[in-house]
């Protein structure tokens, strides 16, 4: 712990004990406690390191009437923390522990009414209960009763904390750490008299409060069920068995009372009981939950069961039946076969489906859980995944209002789902998830047809269109072989995409452009030319040639998101041609010109970021500089525009581009011990032989300038990234240069790598660090002209030339890295700062009090 903190702490304790009201803000105490927790977790013994804390606790507790409730609450929590270690516990037990946790005392003092005292008490106990002595203390003081009462506290925070603490106590009762604290031993609950009172008290409570007597108690029951579920999943056999024995009757009662709100927590409890071998009785309860409740609760229960991935074939089959029944009813497709157990609910499901709200929610639950249904073993399923896909397609058709349901008496139901965006989205999600099920590929054409119809429909909402595209990509991805999709369908898809890139709604244009990018990235083939590995885009009529102009057009879109998406989609679409070096030069030049325009003129950050990422992708896939000469030419302008951007993300991406160029350059540099990669280009050979020319080439490309400007950037992530890259450059190149030739030689040598620093902007800041601002080493710039010849502004200093290695050594990069690596608020968030704040505020208050003799009221908003 910091020495300054140690010395400040006693005074802080004094201040808190004396006048806890004058705190810098109401989170100070929480921060202080967090700091103590961190310290004790790091193995520091708090009482040894800060002996003043004990004094503080006794002072506050002995003078509780004068203390602020927030300070009292803090003291309770702190005491718990101090007593969490066995040594600390011993020290406190001898002094203040009894008094601190004596809730009757707090009640008598009238402080218990304040929820922050109650929560302090609960959390203090919770923190302390880490060892057997603490548990003994808990049992002896008989804290079970108050803790149970707090379960139904008016404050939800208190009730929740009490519930967690109770679970903690019960779990601790069954496995108390052995006195050595090394391993935990399980204590049989029944036989251990010491703790049996706690368990018995809890069991009584369960019996009383599990079944709600009236509607107002529903929330309480929900809480108890949640607690019970938690305990059942984590408790060992003796406690678990005892709990199960206790709750069997109340659970049975709950299962028969149809409280819809309790379905899910009840199901959690039953599932937890079932997983830990709850026996026949629990199994029976489970089957009641899955078969004998009202249809709306039934689908919830069935969904919960399937999500629990419980390997119980009968119940899985039953749940699948329950979830498929609404789809069966609405589509009229016989998903469930003739004699399904879910069939008994057919008429009541129909009844629910006739009502608009319950219809949509029920169908949505069914659809959302379709993936769980299909993940069930095939022999548990009443129908094949392909039939389920057909049903989902059928629901989608009903939603669009185009087809009548084949189910009798469904006219009213149909009205509820026609045009329902929620059902459409759920069905599309289900369709997406079903794409990977076995045996569904036969439906690819049907899926294609329907999705194209959805994409084409003027009634489709932008989010529905977006999902339709995603589903289409998913199916293309999974099926890969598009031979079954007719030429006509593929033509239809191209037509609809052409139309949608011109849509009035930018969201639709955006998802269309994104879709084109995803298609370009999805592997697919046609039977006719299987030997060629192609992407899905190439399988469409016109292929890439047809879509690139669409994307180029989208680069002009008035909406920034669409421009950004089209840049990304272009990168994905052009990637194959970069790898093959086969892009039409005219088109490539047009695209690069437009992208540079976006980079320098676009008002939206997204599109500029996308442009830099486009070039990063291009450079990564470019095999040799000669194959992408246009790109190589553009690099200096990309780097200079990117690093001068106002958006920090653009700048970071620009630095990533610089990093890539650094990698490329250092890969091709010869190193006696490095494994040299295969190189073919003559350019690479020229660089490898000479680190100086490599540095010069980096300078010429603008990489070095980009790194330097990033280093002094006001955005920390930019500075950090630039600093790391510069250090890497320094560590890899400079020692080599020094090893290769004499330093002084290098300095005077005309061939040394150097770079020009202009007299304005970021360069001025770099020059200040380098100390070249006032005394320029080289008055004349590269062009040999003095400042007066250039006629520049008065403030602008003449450009100077600095040696790269020299600059790298003198920039104090390591120091800078250390500063940049810390978060920007590290000073404000330090414990010392917190302690000082507390002291300052208290001093100011005392000062003002003495000066004015009256309380200063500060309005804080």
């Amino acid at each position, binding site marked *: 712990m910091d020495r300054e903190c140690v010395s400040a702490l006693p005074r802080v304790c004094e201040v808190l004990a004396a006048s806890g009201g004058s705190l810098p803000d109401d989170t100070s105490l929480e921060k202080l406690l967090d700091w103590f927790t961190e310290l004790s977790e790091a193995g520091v013994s708090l009482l040894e390191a800060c002996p003043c804390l004990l004094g503080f606790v006794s002072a506050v507790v002995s003078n509780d009437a004068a203390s602020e409730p927030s300070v009292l609450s803090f003291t309770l929590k702190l005491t718990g923390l101090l007593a969490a270690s066995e040594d600390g516990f011993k020290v406190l037990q001898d002094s203040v522990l009894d008094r601190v946790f004596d809730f009757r005392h707090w009640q008598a003092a009238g402080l218990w009414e304040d929820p922050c005292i109650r929560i302090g008490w609960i959390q203090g106990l919770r923190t302390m209960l880490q060892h057997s002595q603490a548990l003994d203390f808990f049992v002896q003081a008989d804290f079970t009763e108050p803790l149970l009462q707090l379960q139904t506290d008016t404050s939800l925070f208190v009730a929740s904390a009490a519930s967690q603490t109770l679970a903690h106590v019960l779990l601790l009762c069954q496995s108390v750490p052995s006195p050595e604290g090394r391993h935990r031993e399980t204590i049989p609950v029944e036989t251990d008299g010491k703790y049996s009172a706690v368990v018995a008290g809890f069991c009584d409570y369960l019996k009383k409060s599990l079944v709600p007597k009236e509607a107002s108690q529903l929330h309480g029951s929900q809480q108890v069920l949640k607690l019970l579920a938690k305990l059942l999943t984590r408790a060992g056999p003796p406690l678990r068995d005892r709990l199960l024995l206790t709750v069997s009757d109340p659970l049975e009662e709950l299962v028969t009372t149809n409280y819809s709100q309790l379905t899910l927590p009840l199901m959690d409890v039953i599932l937890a009981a079932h997983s830990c071998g709850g026996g026949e009785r629990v199994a029976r309860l489970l089957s009641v939950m899955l078969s004998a409740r009202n249809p709306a609760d039934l689908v919830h229960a069935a969904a919960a069961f399937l999500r629990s991935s419980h390997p119980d074939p009968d119940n899985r089959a039953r749940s699948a039946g329950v979830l498929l029944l609404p789809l069966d009813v609405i589509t009229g497709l016989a998903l469930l076969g003739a004699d399904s157990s879910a069939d008994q609910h057919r008429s009541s499901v129909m009844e629910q489906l006739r009502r608009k709200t319950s219809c949509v929610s029920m169908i949505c639950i069914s659809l959302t859980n379709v993936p769980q249904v299909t993940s069930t073993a095939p022999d548990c399923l009443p129908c094949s995944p392909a039939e389920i896909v057909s049903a989902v397609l059928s629901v989608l058709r009903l939603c669009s*209002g185009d*087809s009548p349901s084949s189910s009798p008496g469904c006219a009213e139901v149909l*009205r509820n789902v*026609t045009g329902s965006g929620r059902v459409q989205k759920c069905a599309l999600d289900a369709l997406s998830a079903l794409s990977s099920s076995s045996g569904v590929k036969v439906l690819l054409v049907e899926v294609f047809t329907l999705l194209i119809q959805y994409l084409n429909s*003027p009634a489709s909402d932008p989010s529905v269109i977006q999902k339709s595209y995603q589903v289409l990509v998913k199916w293309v991805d999974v099926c890969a072989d598009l031979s079954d999709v007719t030429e006509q369908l593929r033509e239809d898809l191209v037509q609809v995409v052409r*139309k949608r890139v*011109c849509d*009035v709604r930018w969201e639709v244009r955006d998802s269309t452009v994104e879709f084109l990018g995803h298609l370009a990235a999805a592997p697919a083939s046609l039977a006719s030319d299987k030997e060629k590995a192609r992407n899905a885009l190439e399988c469409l009529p016109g292929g890439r040639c047809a879509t690139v102009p669409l994307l180029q*057009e989208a680069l002009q*879109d008035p909406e920034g998101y669409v421009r950004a998406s089209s840049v990304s989609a272009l990168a994905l679409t052009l990637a194959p041609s970069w790898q093959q070096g086969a892009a039409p030069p005219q088109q490539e030049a047009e695209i690069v010109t437009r992208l540079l325009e976006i980079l320098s003129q676009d008002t939206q950050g997204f599109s500029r970021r996308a442009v830099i990422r486009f070039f990063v992708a291009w450079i990564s896939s470019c095999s040799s500089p000669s194959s992408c000469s246009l790109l190589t030419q553009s690099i200096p302008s990309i780097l200079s525009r990117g690093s001068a951007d106002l958006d920090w993300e653009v700048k970071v991406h620009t630095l990533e581009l610089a990093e890539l160029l650094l990698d490329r350059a250092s890969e091709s540099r010869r190193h006696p011990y490095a494994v040299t990669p295969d190189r073919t280009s003559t350019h690479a050979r020229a660089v490898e032989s000479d680190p100086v020319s490599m540095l010069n080439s980096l300078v010429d490309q603008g990489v070095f300038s980009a790194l330097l400007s990033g280093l002094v950037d006001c955005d920390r992530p930019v500075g950090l990234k630039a600093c790391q890259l510069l250090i890497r450059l320094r560590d890899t190149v400079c020692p080599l240069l020094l090893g290769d030739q004499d330093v002084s030689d290098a300095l005077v040598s005309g061939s040394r790598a150097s770079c020009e620093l202009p007299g304005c902007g970021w360069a001025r800041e770099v020059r200040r660090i380098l100390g070249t601002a006032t005394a320029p080493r080289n008055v004349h710039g590269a062009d040999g002209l003095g400042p007066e010849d250039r006629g520049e502004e008065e403030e602008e200093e003449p450009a100077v030339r600095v040696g790269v290695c020299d600059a790298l050594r003198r920039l104090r990069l390591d120091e800078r890295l250390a500063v940049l690596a810390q978060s920007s608020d590290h000073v404000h968030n330090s414990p010392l700062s917190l302690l000082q704040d507390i002291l300052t505020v208290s001093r100011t208050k005392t000062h003002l009090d003495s000066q004015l003799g009256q309380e200063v009221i500060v309005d804080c908003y």
Partner: protein
Amino acid sequence: MKLYCLSGHPTLPCNVLKFKSTTIMLDCGLDTTSVLNFLPLPLVHSPRLSKLPGWVSKDGTINLEKELKECAGRVFVDSQPEFCLPERELLDLSTIDVILISNYHCMMALPYITEHTGFTGTVYATEPTLQIGRLLMEELVNFMERVPKAQSATCWKNKEIQRLLPGSLKDAVDVWTWKRCYSLQEVNSALSKVQLVGYSQKVELFGAVQVSPLSSGYSLGSSNWIIQSHHEKVSYVSGSSLLTTHPQPMDQSSLKNSDVLILTGLTQIPTANPDGMLGEFCSNLAMTIRAGGNVLVPCYSSGVIYDLLECLYQFIESANLGTTPFYFISPVANSSLEFSQIFAEWLCHNKQTKVYLPEPPFPHAELIQTNKLKHYPSIHGDFSSEFRQPCVVFTGHPSLRFGDVVHFMELWGKSSLNTIIFTEPDFSYLDALAPYQPLSMKCVYCPIDTRLNFHQVSKLLKEVQPLHVVCPEQYTQPPVSQSHRSDLMLELQPPPMPYRRCSVLNLPFRRRYERVYILPELANSLVPSEVKPGISVATVSAVLHSKDNKHTLQSVPKPPPAPSSKKRKRMIEEPPVVLAPKSLLSGAVPLEGFLATLQKHGITEVKVEETPDGHILHLQAQDTLIQLEEDGTHILCDNNEPLRTTLRDLVLRFLQKL
């Protein structure tokens, strides 16, 4: 009250309401779908159309080569197109007192009703309805007269022949009543009978009823009508819209408390959302232009075109269509664009406020200023020299049978780069395109119909709660093509009364009350007596005077001055003119109280028998019956006048006298 239905077309209604001695025609829409059976009228000679083969029946017995031509498997009448008029035999059109027009699309049959029929009444319409209606009629006349056709085909209408004709000609109804277009003179004469009204203005018809137009939100000056007397209210809802487009929003609240609501003019394409269609229109347009093709939009010269231009105004920049020319070609294009800008008071609030800025309410003014939108009266003249492709052309007529659109169909139909986008919902686009087949041009159907859909109308009816709804029969069942869509029909309680062409409906309410005025001096002479707190009653003797459907109670004239003495004797023999009225009784005799009173008077043996109308009391000792009924009491006792009088007085104790 009766409703005569002269048109079965749900959006081109023509109904006649007989209400309180007035005969009111509600709209006179002209069903122009009949023109789809005719060949297009090309503006310049079309070799293709002139070379079409004539039609001869398969067995060769009927030869109508001159009248009927075959094109792409269908048969068309080669003659001046004709329209299907509203029914004219159902009632005598000369008896119509007034015609109420709800919007400019629903008045196109006006000259057929007001001219040569003996009509002497008045037509009521708002100013924009009249002006734009005039434009549409003039345009129609111009389209027809520009391409005169000497021939008038009539042989095919022969019943015996018609039944042997193929396709839609065979099924066409009342072909003998079809008429050629009216002349400009008839238009002027018909429109001279129009009297202008403003929204919520009340117009008295013969003192019997009051009619008043309300904004219906569908088009410039479009209205619904309230027809009411003092105690009855009929609402006539024609094309109405709840969407925010250019016109003033719909006035819904004034439709409340109607006895009968006549509902017509719902959207013709209930499954198409106008916003979605507008989006579809824009994207198809942009797609075609980007690919280097032309776009043809067959449309009326007023109405949705304003919204289309406004939408495009916003869209062209974002879709990089700034350099594409837009042409609007119609004989009335200029007037239509300019009229729209001057009817500020009929526009939605947003557009009204622009007038004070001052800015033109519609952005098409800016499109014209910046030369992006150009308008021409026809393809001849200036247009042909300035025409640049690729371009977008808005022109009529949406039936594709006459007007400049015929020329563009011939010009652009052969290239698959071009697109025709249908936005008017009045014609089936496949039928409209039939005489141009085979066609390479792309066709897109984006019908934009902003009128109420079934969802909106059921909400509206829930809100205004009319007692009875009358509507075209088409609205009482789902559309034939989508019989599973039970949401595309009206479901009301009580069910709506459907009508079809030639129906005569007895509207289901009886007139119960009339308002009667009382003259002050007569009122002064009344002596009211209070029967309940706040309610007083008086008897009146007066003379009822009825004139112009107004009823007034006047004092009874004093007897004439005494005649000459000679006749005096006879006078005395006659009863006086006015008898002093007997006092009237009111109230009810309470059984218990009456029995108690009887007992007080020594009548104890009373047997009470309950009857459907009241009670019969049998006074056994006196052998007397008293029948107590709601509106009368009878005392039956034989020859015991004192007892009867006593009993009568006892009964009277419980009643009030006036």
